[in-house]
């Protein structure tokens, strides 16, 4: 069918610092569930990231820009979960 020839809807997910270490991986190509309205929040659950409800200090970036937890993800996006920042 024509539909099966479509490229899979994938998102590249990055974890950093304590979150990366707790989960044991730093990046993953994740298949978006077809017809699902994918958001960072939904992917956090889909990937089984802990704790199940993302802690207040954790931020989200889509394509290397800060984004909200309910932003819409599109195929090919780069999504990152950023634990509490401590620079400078």
């Amino acid at each position: 069918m024509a539909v099966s020839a479509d490229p899979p809807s994938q998102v590249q997910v990055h974890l950093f610092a304590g979150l990366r270490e707790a989960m044991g991986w730093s990046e993953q190509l994740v298949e978006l569930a077809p017809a699902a309205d994918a958001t960072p929040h939904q992917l956090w659950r889909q990937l089984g990231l802990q704790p199940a409800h993302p802690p207040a200090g954790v931020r989200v970036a889509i394509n290397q820009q800060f984004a909200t937890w309910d932003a819409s993800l599109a195929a090919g996006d780069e999504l990152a979960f950023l634990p509490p920042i401590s620079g400078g």
Partner: protein
Amino acid sequence: MLAIQLEAEPFEPLQALAEWHQLLAAELGMLPAAESHFVGRVRPSGANDSPLTALELEHYPGMTEACIASLAAAAAGQHGATAVLVRHRIGLVLPGDPIVLVAIGADRRGPAQRCCQELLEALKHDAPFWKREWHADGSSAWITGNTAL
């Protein structure tokens, strides 16, 4: 004028400032009337006063640089600063070694100082860096907040 650099190896803040002065003199013809600098170095002890062997700085390649550039441009625009320099370490940094250098050039002391202060806070809170403290026994801990102002 923004000059931003992540440093994977130890850097000397005064050497970085000297290079920046050369750049400024070449671009502006003259150094600005007011300059404010901040240098931050690794403390010898960590969050719970235990001695540190090193501080590790993780970043998000690409996003961190872009983020610093955008914070620097915003701070410069808001305060009317002429020039901004940011050098920030990544990787393993030893106690006493510089982590961050922020320098602002402006026509007046107030804008130079305020811009320097605000950009430093912005870097601490809004640029993707993560610090991990390494201890003598080989243990380590990620820091989940900033040091007190």
